[in-house]
């Protein structure tokens, strides 16, 4: 059995489960009080200057106009180009953008290798000599792969350097953060070396993906525990472990950012009579309270609404 491919499967499973568990946990937290922050991107006709529906006279009598396109207009440059960091922290952007864009390209590389692996398994030739589609896939994989690895490596090195040599950053950097960046540097460096030395056109990696998508985890004919070359094996091993590791850390912000924007910063849904929010609030107001300050005196039995309606005098202030 090819141990490297088994580790890859396990890593993918860990990644998916970690993301799902975190996503569900955050989703199941109670609906909170409103805490929006303007500009709110979906405010139709108002997002450009940060206005809200509260600028309307008797807003509660009018339909709220929300714009999905407005959200995309903000989110796409924010995600792809790190527009906020560009605007507010240009020096950091110079380091952070190559790193993140490199990661996006490498995510694209994984997609291309999956498609290439499936195509190869189906008998198509993905190479410089193949058909038009095979050729395109080959060349795009080549370009995306090297660009992603080079950008990712440079970005990770630049971020690591900033955290090591700039005192403002160093004082906020934990040992674990150094480990995280070093993990990226090592993975990207090994991958570049693997492709520079042993697998210059990603054909070896594509062959691994072909085996992954066909669930061919058999050992090599000579009985060794993996079939690919040594450097490629280390590349896959490190890449797999990194994939499993990311969602277990604060780097899970790659998907939790969806919550900070849509559930907090842009969450401007009013509590209208009969709405779902009102039903959720009615439930939350019944939670027992145990805060101990003299003006609250929660005993774990009195509910939130009991205390809010009681006033301060009943609580001994």
């Amino acid at each position, binding site marked *: 059995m090819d141990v490297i491919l088994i580790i890859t499967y396990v890593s993918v499973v860990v990644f998916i489960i970690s993301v799902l568990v975190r996503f569900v946990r955050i989703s199941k937290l109670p609906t909170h009080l409103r805490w929006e922050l*303007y500009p709110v991107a979906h405010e139709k006709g108002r997002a450009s200057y940060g206005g809200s529906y509260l600028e309307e006279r008797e807003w509660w009598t009018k339909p709220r106009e929300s714009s999905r396109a407005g959200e995309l207009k903000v989110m796409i440059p924010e995600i792809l180009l790190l527009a906020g960091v560009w605007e507010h922290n240009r020096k950091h952007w110079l380091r952070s953008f190559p790193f993140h864009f490199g990661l996006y390209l490498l995510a694209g590389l994984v997609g291309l290798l999956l498609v290439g692996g499936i195509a190869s398994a189906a008998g198509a030739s993905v190479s410089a000599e193949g058909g038009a589609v095979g050729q395109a896939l080959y060349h795009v994989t080549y370009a995306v792969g090297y660009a992603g690895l080079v950008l990712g490596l440079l970005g990770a090195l630049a971020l690591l350097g900033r955290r090591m040599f700039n005192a403002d950053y160093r004082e906020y950097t934990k040992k674990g953060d150094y480990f995280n960046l070093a993990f990226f540097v090592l993975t990207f460096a090994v991958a570049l070396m693997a492709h520079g030395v042993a697998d210059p056109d990603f054909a070896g990696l594509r062959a691994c993906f072909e085996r992954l998508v066909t669930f061919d985890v058999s050992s090599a004919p000579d009985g060794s525990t993996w079939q690919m070359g040594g450097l490629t094996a280390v590349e896959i091993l490190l890449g797999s472990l990194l994939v499993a590791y990311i969602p277990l850390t604060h780097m899970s912000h790659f998907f*939790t950012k969806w919550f900070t924007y849509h559930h907090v910063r842009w969450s401007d849904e009013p509590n209208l009579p009969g709405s779902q929010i009102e039903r959720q609030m009615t439930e939350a107001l019944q939670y027992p309270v145990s805060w101990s*300050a003299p003006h609250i005196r929660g005993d774990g039995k009195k509910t939130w609404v009991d205390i809010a309606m009681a006033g*301060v005098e009943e609580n001994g202030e």
Partner: protein
Amino acid sequence: MTKKRIKVEDISKPSEKLSELRKEDFKPLPPPFDTPEATPDFAPLSEAAREKYEVSLDDTIAVSIPKPKDKAEEDELVAKFLSGLEKLFTKEDNWTFLQPLLLSMEHCAACHTCSEACHIYEASGENPIYRPAFRSEVFRRLYKKHVKSKGGLLQAWRDGEIELNWTTVARLAELSYRCNLCRRCAQTCPIGVDNGLIAHEIRKLFSQELGIAAKELHDDGSVLQLKVGSSTGMSPLVVKDNIEFIDEDVSEKTGLKIETPWDKAGAEILLIHNAGEIMSWPMNPGAFGVIFEVGGVSWTMSSEIAGYDSINYGVWYDDFQLARVAIKHAEAAKKLGVKKIVLGECGHAHKALTVIADRVLTGDLNIPRESCMVTLEDLIFSGRIKVDPSRNDFPVTLHDPCNLVRLMGVVEPQRRIIRHIAPRFREMEPHGVHNYCCGGGSGFAIMSGHNFNDWRHQIGGRKKLEQILNAFKDELDPSIRKYVCTPCSNCKGQLRDLFVYYDLWEKHSILYDGLVELIANCMTDVKPDFIEWEWH
């Protein structure tokens, strides 16, 4: 002398003072305030204060926490802090903000983008303890060590070092009151981490578990309001008397017969002022009376407890006090059967009742709330109020209260009015949702104990002063009267004190006041010269 570097873990190390505030480190102000003598000296804390209170954070105190008598008392307070820390992360005790808090606890990448956005960090000359991420990182490490992972082999390696002791607790309490909660930093965070929220939650922990809060906000603020009716101490009887005086004054001043309606059942609008206006800026409620009467509005004020004072200090430090006051406001409106509540010129009252308490007001307490900016815009542009903009022929700029603008999105109504009635209007830079806090946000405008006044004017309000001076930079000549339109009572409180501190009226004839005063000043139905330039 180079500035001292302060690490996050240093907060736990007992010393006389974690950080020193030196005037020469602060960001220079624009001319003519760019000389050291233009800024008053930062008064040292008195010996009595040093003896009695915990003063080891910086050179001032806002919360005034008494020093524990002995080690046993220290330990007890630390234990209470820990108990509150745990409660803050349970859905039963903190459903109100648990999701945003956890998101901010888990995902900071320490990129320091927030620091650039913070007026306090900038004005202090980049004092490390005022970096928005400093207090958050202290709190994050405490949470991860004592709540999330409860120690463990890799915990310090992964999350950083921190020690929980009385020094940490006392300094953290004070540090939560070195933030205006303006959330400008959160606007710039690429991940959506909200350091303003974390400061807010720390304040809540101290208030809701240890009963520790700034006296001006709790004892003299929300508690007084719930007992007497207003944090100003005005009972219903007194407020009615005061408004009667204001009606008389404003009638004489305008030539109109103004009589504020009280407790008029079935009125369309319940108008709730920040009662501070009635006490300190009586021409503000007076101008509202004039505008509403001339505009033919069906309105009333309420003499119920808290029904005549829109302030809600709970929004800055305590969810239960927030809810209690919001419920009183809603009950007053419900009793009168009004169609809507209109909030007067008070930013935090706007946000507290319209946005933050929105989800607490369920059932028949969910009475619609509207900003007075919107109501006033409608009155002017519907033609019910006639104006002559030439009466406002002086330089005007607009301060954007954070709570009304950045945190509520009410940006343009007040601008449309000002552009219409003030021909020499110019924006501050930056403005709108990117504007800077006045320095009085989160309760600081009413906090002047010990030498905190020096802190809020030399650090908190420094950026706003710079913005105002820049807005009028070509017309600083004292022969030209200038007007900073400030449609928020707390911001006005801060600007009043800031202007006195730097002598802005005497030196440059810069006056602050509200939007309604500017409107009344140009109403053709009103005698000219409503604005009282000599009253400042």
